[in-house]
């Protein structure tokens, strides 16, 4: 909004902005990175080892407190909570990863194309984008679950497609900004086509925005996956998942609140980690991109 003012120019010429930006957001990135790293590590470890079989039920061992055998106790079906927590990290991360990739694969080319054809097809593309955005990712997932039945695949596809309009919107505004720069005009004056513009100028310059968007999108996808599993429309049993642990814990809330607390904390920490990471990266790449639509 405000133009480069002289006082700011004076400040910046003195500060040489580069070193400042390089360390901006460092604390957030570190904290977020540790949290996310922990969750990723949990998922990786659970691939090769868990304390117990996370799917093995045992009527005898129902609802036990912590013991040497069951570090965090057992749930209503006698399964080992610690093992379920470890293995439960796999699905959210997988769904998050695939959903983010899908949203980028759809949203980035769409957003760039809409920006490049701004006055022509671009207007209609963004109208279409608005319409898709009226279908929240979770609603889309519920629709697909109604049609095809709930599964990991429908969750990934629905959440990915549902998140793509948001990506497209951000990419479009970033691209428009790049295209309004004189270097983009210079490239066109040099006879370079839209593809060259997109690959050589737009993508490198919106890379920061994309990384931030992907990180935040990951948090949203993890949250939505948990909600789907909680509703019973996510990954079907017996594959362990934090969302379903919550759902199963709800009926036993009166008996054992810890059944809700453990998976709840796991979900919250994962989301917190990605959000902190995203905020930190935003501080570093693009301090002014937060709200503007």
């Amino acid at each position, binding site marked *: 909004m405000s133009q480069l003012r002289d006082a700011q120019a004076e400040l910046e010429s003195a500060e040489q902005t580069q070193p400042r930006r390089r360390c901006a957001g460092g604390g957030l990135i570190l904290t977020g990175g540790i949290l996310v790293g922990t969750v990723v590590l949990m998922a990786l470890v659970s691939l090769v080892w868990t304390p117990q079989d996370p799917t093995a039920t045992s009527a005898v061992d129902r609802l036990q407190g912590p013991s040497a055998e069951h570090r965090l106790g057992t749930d209503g079906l006698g399964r080992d909570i610690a093992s379920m927590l470890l293995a439960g990290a796999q699905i959210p991360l997988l769904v998050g990863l695939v959903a983010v990739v899908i949203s980028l694969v759809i949203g980035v080319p769409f957003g760039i194309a809409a920006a490049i054809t701004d006055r022509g097809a671009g207007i209609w593309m963004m109208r279409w984008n608005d319409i898709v955005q*009226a*279908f929240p990712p979770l609603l889309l997932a519920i*629709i697909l679950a109604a049609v095809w039945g709930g599964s990991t695949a429908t969750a990934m596809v629905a959440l990915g497609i549902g998140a793509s309009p948001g990506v497209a919107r951000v990419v479009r505004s970033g691209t428009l900004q790049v295209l309004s720069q004189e270097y983009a005009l210079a490239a066109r004056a040099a006879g370079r086509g839209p593809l060259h513009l997109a690959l050589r100028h737009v993508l490198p310059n919106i890379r920061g925005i994309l990384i931030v968007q992907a990180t935040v999108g990951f948090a949203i996808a993890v949250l939505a996956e948990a*909600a789907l599993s909680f509703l019973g429309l996510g990954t079907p049993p017996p594959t362990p998942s934090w969302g379903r642990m919550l759902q199963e814990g709800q009926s036993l809330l*009166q008996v054992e609140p810890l059944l809700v607390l453990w998976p709840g904390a796991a979900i*919250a*920490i994962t989301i917190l980690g990605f959000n902190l990471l995203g905020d930190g990266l935003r501080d570093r790449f693009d301090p002014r991109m937060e709200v503007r*639509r």
Partner: protein
Amino acid sequence: MSTAAVSSAAPRKGADVTMTVLRRIGVFALTVWVASLVVFTLLNVLPGDMARAQLGMNATDADVASFRAEHGLDRPLPVQYFDWITGFLTGDMGISYSSRAPVAPQVFDALQVSLILVGAGILIAVLIALPLGTLAAVRQNKPDGVLLSAVSQAGIAIPNFLAGLLLISIFAVGLGWMPSGGWTAPAEGFGDFLRQLALPALALGLVRGAILSRYTRAAVLDVMRDDFMRTARAKGLMPGAALRRHGLRNALVPVVTVTSVEFSALVIGAVVIETVFVIPGLGSLLMRAVDNRDLIQVQGIVMCVVVLVLLVNLLVDITRTLIDPRLRSAR
């Protein structure tokens, strides 16, 4: 940039607003129509065969054929679409596949419940977000500002259904102050209504409020960097007065804008919260319809939700036009 007369825009304000609003309404109608096509396609074309999807793989061909005939599924898709959408516009959403009862009355009953819940949720969210977000911005480098910022960050990380479960375990199971779920219509007992509304509305509003407060904080911070805020200080306004008189209204524009996105998140959040608190709203109805694979009912509910979201987008757009004179003649 000539010094000729003041541009003629000033006295035409009323006409500009009306035109802008009419144009927005036109776009809204068009958008709803396209959205209805999307909904219809998703639920009628994607499954391949709605009857098969309803009856399951074991149904005999004869069963499937008679089901089709009964629900008009043997007609061409455009005819089915036309039939459905004209029905929808007149308040008829077809006959449920599972209960064989008309869909619309159930949906309208549930919609009322959901609207109350969503309304209460957004009220709580806004009441939390605007003051706290502004405070966090103004005191951005002070301990309390940082604390507020951290609390909102933690709030965002808690999914609303988890918040719901925690509220239940504290206030219903632990302290026994509130019921753990259920619903009473306000007409049947206002006290019960409020007691049952409190926890689910809080679960919805707290989380959304945390998110909205971060947007508010960012918007206020943005505005505080604007040139006209410096002008306000140069006039002799104290920082607080400058923010009140010039900053907040400007910060409201982006906040109102995100409210439309936040609203759709809140509506879909209500679906989950209704399941947690056993509230007979659209969400519960939708989950039941999904369980029963009652696609015609799903279709009606989804369309309702989408229209609601688009309607709020429209209202938000109009509100922005009213706040910001620059949008009145733009585009």
